[in-house]
């Protein structure tokens, strides 16, 4: 087998692997979209249960998008990229949770 044939075969295997990744990501994302929309449309749970289910599906779907569409794969990833994602997530958490906490507390005091 010549070197270029070997190349083409490696290429095909890698193409198949990456195509499977996109198809799997798309399938998972569709399911994680259908489930919360279905639950809300048919009011399948009590309100509190609905909120938990919507939040859980959203979190998993965000992870699926990161993994299969943005190709963020921690063991293989450049360390700088991972640090940036984690640091941004931390900042986002402080800012969003802090805003909601402080303003909800203020609203309760003013009520």
């Amino acid at each position, binding site marked *: 087998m010549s070197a270029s044939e070997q190349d083409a075969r490696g290429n095909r295997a890698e193409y198949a*692997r990456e195509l499977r990744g996109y198809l799997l990501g798309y399938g998972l994302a569709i399911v994680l979209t259908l489930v919360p*929309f279905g639950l*809300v449309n048919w009011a399948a749970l009590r309100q509190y249960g609905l909120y938990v289910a919507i939040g859980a599906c*959203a979190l998993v779907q965000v992870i699926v*998008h*990161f993994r299969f*569409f943005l*190709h*963020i794969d921690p063991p293989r990833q450049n360390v700088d990229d991972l640090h940036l994602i984690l640091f941004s997530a931390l900042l*986002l958490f402080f800012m969003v949770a802090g805003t909601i906490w402080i303003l909800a507390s203020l609203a309760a005091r003013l009520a």
Partner: protein
Amino acid sequence: MSAAPPLRHPGINLGPAHPETEEKSAELLFGFWVFLMSDAIIFGLLFATYAVMLHARAGGPGPEQLYDIKSAFIETLALLSSSFTYGMASLALKYGRRHEWLIGWLVATMCLGGLFLRLEAQDFISMFHEGAGPSRSGYLSSFFALVPLHGLHVTSGIIWMLALILQIVRYGVDRDVKLGLLRLGLFWHFLDIVWVAIFSFIYLGGLA
């Protein structure tokens, strides 16, 4: 999966078959990733504002009266499918020998993005007809600060895609076009993640 090579930057890596992009891609895509993370902070703070303003309705209509689950569902499917078609465009860029497939997938992505925007515009217009514009209440101001900002991002993504298609037609798939397509891919998939948060917390949370 263990045989897969390490990733040099976020998004699809073109690998050794595209040596001309290897030199610059890690640096350029890291910079673009920094921009996306700062954009995520802006969206996150608008979400926090929305959560705080949710009950500030000044006697006006609330989510139960204004949101339409069917339209939010079709919009979600359109944007999600456009993320998939962009993924197929990325594979056509990485493995394809001719440009027709690449352009075809990009055009499909633009059509799905356009469908999304058309449906979203219809939602906003029907809200305006019900007297629920941004000036009606604090809740609606925060809604119109957040959701149309995402729509504006999608619009700019479509304009960018059109510009790249014209560059492909004019110059072929050269290094700069490849690097542009890699960055637009990050942008497009990132917008889909923001939309996951919008349909979950705003539309479904409001209707639950």
